[in-house]
């Protein structure tokens, strides 16, 4: 179907930020529709500015378009003004490249980066004229797939998504493409496509599994409905990043986006083992790209994009083995082109003073540190291997190096937290301020600004805290108020905290089961979209949706789960064993830390998969 271009133009004249919808950016790929055998619509369920900042999209967009017979085009969530106009004027959600409606694609894929984007998935499907419920979708409609970190608990989306790709997408995406392409040609029923997909390693097809529940509402069993469907779906792992696909040409937007720079993924995974961190568990094992590969990619990307900034991304860039050498090399190579190099996730215990001095040659922005908790006791509980002395040393370095703006990230509501730990946050902020004033006046930059940011802890699947109940709203509000009062007294400190309601909802969906699909649909039908945007988010509507479906938010978020409770995501094999996670949970209770796995294998479970983790050895903790 072709949409009248003038109709689209009429809408664009009426919206704010039309460049979100215009396309035509440098390095986008526009293939002729008829020339492609397979048409893939890659959907990012948030706005253009957010979605265009996402590395995974750039990788998969490049990968699919690199296949001669395949075409991949992008879709983003329209802002409310555009959404309303499109509905009023009967304009379906169209792709950025050829302005083709979503429903015309053979397959559409959503990336699941955070739970609060789920209503956007429904909104995009509805606007794109794709039937929402998987079971109601027709033969000619697209196959709907999803991947990304939230796919590790796919259950809340089980009613809507045909197939989930678990883990690294570089290889499995092409296998799924192939299966859908073959099915399209075959003329077989839709269910036959799902059957074929369920047999691809790393692909979870919810339709192929039956879920039963105990009387208390917890999951009793998740059982394959037929032979040949695996009991558990094992995540995909790309073992060698040097040979894995990485794009050398990425779309360069006209309008400013959140992360408007080259993202050079220097490694994947993290060996730290912070107990609250889902990404740290999901993206195991740690895999580094070689120095040679990275310099090669850096040159190619600089030349193809013209970006003036490059960030070295990973979960913990400071841990990259040859970081100092890499930075030195890139700074030297990029000097003539005036490309600045930045490290986004600066870990305070690993960044060499040297590399700080290297980066400061370029412009000085704010430095971010994430102690996460205010006392050593609680940092030991969460296994955040950072000490106060580390932090003060690093901020002192930064202040001496000419920075005057520092951000400190904390979480409140962590397991075992007491008000002493909140006092610890204020205490740490105070010490950072003192560290600034300890640098002689002539040597420090003017305008001290310490931003203390406190987010609300959300227990996530596949972490040692997956059994924990989240703090109630009352508890969180009291803690926020207490901290606000404490920090107000400190000069130079600004306190930021997020709406905890959103974290409450996030906690429900992060560990939710299939039955939340109805709640999601209800909430969407009552108008919930763009929930991660605080000016649009409506908790009232969500509460009403839970009530209407007879689902209990409190039960999902606050309940302390039993050791032997079958988790809704038990069907997904992340490689991390429950025995390891439980052991970590017990150590957390006792305040015992676990070493970085670079210093010795901790037996997280991945050692069972031969040749996957470079640091694996031994059998690890007792296997359940």
């Amino acid at each position, binding site marked *: 179907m072709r949409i009248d271009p*003038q109709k689209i133009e009429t809408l664009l004249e009426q919206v704010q930020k039309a*460049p979100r919808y215009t396309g*035509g950016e440098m390095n986008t790929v526009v293939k002729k529709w008829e020339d492609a055998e397979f048409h893939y619509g890659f959907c990012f369920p948030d706005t253009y500015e957010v979605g265009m900042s996402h590395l995974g999209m750039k990788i998969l967009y490049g990968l699919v378009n690199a296949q001669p017979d395949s075409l991949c085009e992008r879709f983003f969530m329209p802002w409310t003004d555009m959404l309303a106009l499109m509905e009023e004027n009967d304009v379906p959600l169209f792709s950025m490249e050829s302005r083709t409606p979503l429903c015309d694609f053979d397959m559409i894929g959503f990336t699941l980066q955070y739970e609060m984007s789920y209503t956007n998935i429904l909104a995009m499907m509805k606007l794109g004229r794709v039937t929402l419920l998987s079971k109601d979708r027709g033969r000619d409609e697209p196959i709907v797939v999803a991947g990304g970190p939230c796919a590790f608990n796919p259950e809340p989306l089980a009613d809507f998504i045909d197939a989930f790709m678990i883990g690294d997408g570089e290889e499995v995406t092409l296998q799924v493409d192939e299966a859908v392409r073959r099915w399209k040609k075959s003329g077989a029923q839709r269910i036959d496509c799902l059957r074929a997909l369920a047999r691809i390693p790393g692909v979870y097809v919810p339709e192929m599994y039956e879920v039963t529940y105990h009387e208390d509402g917890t999951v009793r069993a998740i059982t394959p409905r037929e032979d040949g469907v695996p009991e558990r779906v094992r995540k995909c792992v790309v073992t060698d990043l040097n040979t894995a696909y990485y794009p050398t040409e990425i779309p*360069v937007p006209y309008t400013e986006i959140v992360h408007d720079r080259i993202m050079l993924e220097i490694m994947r995974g993290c060996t730290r083992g912070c107990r609250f961190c889902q990404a740290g568990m999901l993206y195991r094992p740690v895999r580094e790209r070689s120095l040679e590969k990275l310099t090669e990619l850096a040159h190619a990307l600089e*030349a193809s994009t*013209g970006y003036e900034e490059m960030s070295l991304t990973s979960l913990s860039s400071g841990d990259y083995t040859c970081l100092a050498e890499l930075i030195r090399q890139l700074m030297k190579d990029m000097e003539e082109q*005036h490309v600045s190099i930045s490290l986004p996730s600066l870990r305070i215990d690993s960044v060499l003073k040297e590399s700080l001095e290297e980066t400061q040659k370029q412009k000085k922005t704010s430095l971010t540190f994430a102690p996460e908790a205010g006392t050593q006791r609680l940092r030991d509980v969460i296994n955040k291997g950072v000490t106060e002395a580390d932090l003060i040393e690093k901020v002192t370095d930064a202040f001496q190096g000419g920075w005057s703006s520092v951000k400190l990230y904390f979480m409140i509501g962590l397991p075992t937290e007491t008000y002493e730990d909140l006092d610890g946050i204020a205490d740490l902020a105070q010490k950072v301020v003192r560290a600034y004033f300890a640098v002689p006046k002539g040597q420090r930059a003017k305008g001290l600004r310490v931003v203390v940011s406190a987010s609300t802890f959300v227990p996530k699947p596949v972490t040692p805290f997956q059994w924990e109940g989240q703090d109630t709203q009352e508890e969180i509000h009291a803690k926020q108020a207490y901290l606000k009062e404490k920090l107000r007294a400190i000069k130079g400190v600004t306190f930021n905290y997020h709406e905890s309601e959103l974290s409450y909802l996030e906690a429900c969906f992060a560990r939710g089961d299939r039955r939340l699909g109805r709640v999601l649909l209800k909430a969407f039908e009552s108008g919930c979209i763009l929930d991660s945007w605080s000016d649009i988010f409506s908790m009232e509507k969500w509460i009403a949706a839970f009530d209407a479906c007879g689902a209990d938010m409190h039960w999902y978020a606050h309940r302390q789960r039993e050791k032997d409770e079958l988790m809704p995501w038990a069907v997904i094999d992340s490689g991390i064993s429950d025995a390891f996670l439980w052991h970590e949970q017990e150590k957390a209770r006792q305040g015992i830390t676990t070493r970085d796995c670079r210093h010795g294998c901790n037996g997280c479970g991945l050692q069972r998969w031969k040749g996957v983790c470079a640091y694996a050895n031994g059998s690890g903790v007792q296997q359940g």
Partner: protein
Amino acid sequence: MRMAAVFSKDERLRHIGHLDIMRAMQRALRRSGLPVSYSQGFNPHILLGFASALSTGAASERELMEVTLRGEVSAEEFLRRMNAALPPQMQLVRCFPLEEKGPALMSLVRAARWRVELLGEGAAAIAAAVPAFLQQEEIPSIRKTKSGEKEINLRPWIYSLSADGGTLHATLALSEQANCKPDMLVRALAAFAGTEAPRMLATREELMGEDPAGQLIPLEVLLSPCEDS
């Protein structure tokens, strides 16, 4: 050396604002590998100047910019390398070297030639009203400035205007003191014809300068009189 480049901004990109176009051009220059010059200082940027900012919502066939280069580059090579580095919706049409010490392009602009397609209801009435519209000595209009709205007379800023079916052809003043944008013109026309302002699609066809005799001539001709454009 200073190189002048004439470029187009297609309809598809008409909603991209001037600052975004400037940034896209800077990145294209970087991609091109041409020996561009950077400013001194903390955040070095490419030495690049636009003759005029094009309003968001308008397309253009011939925008003009100047780039300072560290070495000699032929116009042909500049054109070739830039077009390889630019998206198809934004391409160079022509380039030519500028006098080293010449004035900034922006200071030379006096007017612009526009083609304005009127779409939908009201277009015919507006086109029919053009001759009578031009007979007026005063055409009141509102100019938005930083300090608020100012009432102005548009008539002296309309150098020429004709209608051809639903399309207007106009040469309108464009300088810091006198600036008539196509939407101002269309609003004034609609008010005169007693109709609602229709949708419009404005395309800037050419920037104009002034020859020593005070006559409007294409800026490109003023800058490089010997070359055919």
